[in-house]
Every structure is written in C-alpha cells, then in structure tokens.
C-alpha cells in the first residue's frame, strides 16, 4: 500500500519519472489558475458582482484582515505569498475527496518545498522592509551570544513547519488506510469528512505561522517602538 504520493509513478518523461505528487501539484495549480482566470476575466467594480467574485473577495479580504491582525502592517506586500500558500494547501487538501486523488501536501517534498519558500521569504521581506544591516542585526539581539540560537531557531521552525503539515496530511491518509483494513464500510467516510476539516485547519495553520515568521523578520525594535 502506497501512502506517499512520491512512490506512485504515473508516467515517465524521458528519464524523469512523473510522480503522483508532481502530477497532482500541476493539476491543483492548473485548477487554481483556470478558476482564477475565469472568475477574474469578467471582474466588476460595480456593486453588482458575480457569486464567484464575491466568494474570492470575501476570501481575500479575510486573508488581508488576518495578515493585518498578525503583522500590524499593511497586508498588500504579504498578500500574494501568504494567500497563495493558504489557497494551495487548502485546495490540495480539499480535493482529497476526489477518488484517485493524492493530496500533494501529503508528500514531505511538497511541504518541505513550501517551508523552504517561507524560510527564504522571511529574510526577503525583512530586508525589503528594514534594509540588510538592520535585518542582520536582529540575529544578534539581545546580544551576540544569541546568534547561533537565532540561526538554529530559524532552521528548526522551517523544519517544524514542513513536518507539521506533512505529518498531519499524511496521518489522515494513513488513518484512512488503516481504518479501511479494520472497518471498511462507514468509518472511513466519516474519517474522510474529518480529514477535510483537518486539511482546512492545516492550511490555516501554515498560513498563520508563515505570517508570524515573516512578521517577526520584518519587525525591528525600532519599528515596534515607533508603532507603539
């Protein structure tokens, strides 16, 4: 029994094996981009808007609100990154009710890739906001002794982020797999519903945690003092 989408090879392009992980990532991407393009093609700025546009606007305003609440800053620069992260994880997990679908978030490679993106996003946003020297000075605060601990915390939280998401999604798949062998009829369906809920919670958690990490990187003492 395969529980990791990386172990399923769907087809081969030359010497590169296209695993279910890669394939379904593309599918989710394609789905997201197509839906976005279709909805935003007839975008309206009047008070009469389509149901789908309304849905997207509600979703995005909610994400903006969350970013503002966590960072105490304007949401605009962070919205594409955090929004993409949330929407990708959310949709990846949500589509798990489709038969034959393997959520890419169940692969440690995907979650690691997302965590690495967050890992690099923190300094990118930090330097953009504070400048290089001010950002680097954050690592030796409150004293130089803290430098190795700061670096360790930076790496460990990236690791934790990737493993948390992977573990939660994979565990869901695994639980269903085990339950199928124990009680094959109704329980897996119930667990599937629970899995949908957990998937959304995980999407929310990874997005919020990323925001918190980025916010901590873009905040210096000076700014906090100015803001307060």
């Amino acid at each position, binding site marked *: 029994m395969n529980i990791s989408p990386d172990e399923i090879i769907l087809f081969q392009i030359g010497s590169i094996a296209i695993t279910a992980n890669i394939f379904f990532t593309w599918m989710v991407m394609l789905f*997201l981009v197509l839906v976005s393009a279709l909805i935003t093609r007839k975008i309206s700025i009047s008070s009469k808007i389509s149901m789908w546009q309304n849905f997207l606007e509600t979703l995005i305003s909610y994400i903006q609100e969350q970013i503002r609440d966590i960072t105490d800053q304007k949401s605009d620069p962070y919205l594409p990154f955090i929004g*993409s992260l949330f929407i990708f994880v959310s949709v990846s997990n949500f589509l798990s009710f489709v038969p034959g679908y393997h959520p890419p978030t169940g692969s440690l490679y995907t979650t690691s890739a997302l965590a690495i993106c967050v890992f690099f996003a923190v300094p990118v946003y930090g330097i953009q906001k504070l400048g290089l020297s001010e950002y680097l000075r954050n690592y030796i605060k409150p004293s130089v002794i803290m430098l190795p601990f700061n670096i360790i915390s930076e790496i460990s939280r990236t690791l934790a982020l990737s493993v948390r998401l992977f573990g939660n999604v994979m565990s869901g798949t695994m639980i269903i797999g085990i339950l199928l062998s124990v009680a094959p009829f109704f329980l897996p369906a119930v667990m599937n519903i629970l899995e949908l809920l957990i998937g959304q919670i995980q999407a929310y958690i990874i997005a919020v945690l990323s925001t918190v990490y980025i916010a901590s990187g873009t905040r210096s003492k000076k700014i906090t003092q100015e803001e307060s």
Partner: protein
Amino acid sequence: MQIDWITLVAQIINFLILLFLLKHFLFDKIVSAMRKRQERIDNKLQDAESTREEAEQKLQEYQQMKSELEKQKNDMLKNAEQEANKRKEDLLDDARNKIDQLSEKWKSEIEKEKEEFFKTFRHKVGSEIYQTSKTVLKDLADKKIESAITDKFIDKINNLSDSERDKIQEHLNDSDALLIRTTYELEKRSDLEQVLKKQFGKDLQLDFNVTDDFIGGIELVANGYKVIWSIEEFTQHLLEKFNDYIEKNE
C-alpha cells in the same frame, strides 16, 4: 532515506510559478477591483455628503427667505393695521367734527329761532300790553296813553342827570340835529320842543319821525346816542323772566 532533490526543487519551482500566476490572475485583479470599488463608494459618499451640504445650505437659504418673507408679511400687516387705525381715527375725527359742526349749526339755528321767537313774542306782548294799557288808561283816567307817554318823556328830559345831559350835548356838537322818534302822532310837540330847547339851547334843530320799530314809546336820538321811554322796556323785563323760566325747565 534518499532525498529526491529533483522533486524538492520541482515543488519549489512549482510553488513559485503558482505564486506568480495567482498574483497575476487572482490577487492583483481582485485587490484592484476591491480598491476601485472602495474609491467609487468613497467618491459617491463624498458626492452625497457634498450634495447633502448643498441641500442643507439651500434649506438654510430657503428658511432665511421664508423668515424674511414672514417678517415682511408681519411688517406689512402691522403697517396696514396702523394705517387702518389711523384711517379709522381720521374718519372718527371727521365724523366728530362734522357732528360738532352740525350740532353747532343746529344750536345756532335754535338760538336764532329762539331769538326770532323772542323778538316776535316781545313785539306781540309789547303791543298787547300797549293796547291793554291804552284801554285801561282810557277807561280809568280818560286819558290818552300817547299824551301820558309824552308827559312821562318830558318829565324824564327835565330830570336828566348832568352826566346824561353832557353825553347828549357831546353827541350834539358833532351834528346839531336831534331826532325825536315816536310810535304815534305827537300832539304835544311844542311842549317837548320847549323842554328840549330849554335843556340843550335855543338853536337846537329838531326832526320828528313816526316809526313802528318799537312799541308804544318815544325816543331821542342824538347822533347814535339814545334816550328812550317805551312799553318795550317793561316787556323786556317780562321776557327775561320768561327766558329764565324756560331755561330752568329745559
């Protein structure tokens, strides 16, 4: 566990591509649409606010105009009332004046009538008394009333006071003609002439005249100054009493 670096890198690239595509197709468009809508709403609100302010200003203007009109109306009403009152007063004054005039006229007419009446009455009474006296005198003393009057007058001339005589003399100096007026034909003319000449000098010019201006009497006129004896003097007294009586009973 062997790490499949290709998958890891591929997933990173996949996410970055997705990030770019979603930014382009989703976030930018939705956010700009939301922003534009917000701006439009803000503009509309601003428009509404300015329209409201304008309306309020207009309202204030109209209220001011209304109050001004009200004031004007009140002023006009007040003026009209004042004018009406004035006119009323004028009319009342006019009416009062007219009434006063009328009553004045009426009073004077009454006075005139009264006078006329008394004149007539006096004449009538005088002539009645004269006639009665004439008859009484004739029956009792077999004497003519005319000669009695002449005697009385001669007596009066004889007994003139000095001041009276002086006054007559004074008037005579201006024109020496002395007029004797009687209501009857004078029989004892020579006696009277004698007495007068004795009082006022022998060169005295005398004119005699019969008149019915008064009743039963004789009159001496010296250039406007008069000495008279007449029944009318008695009737005058009677009339005064009568008049008093009427006024008391009015």
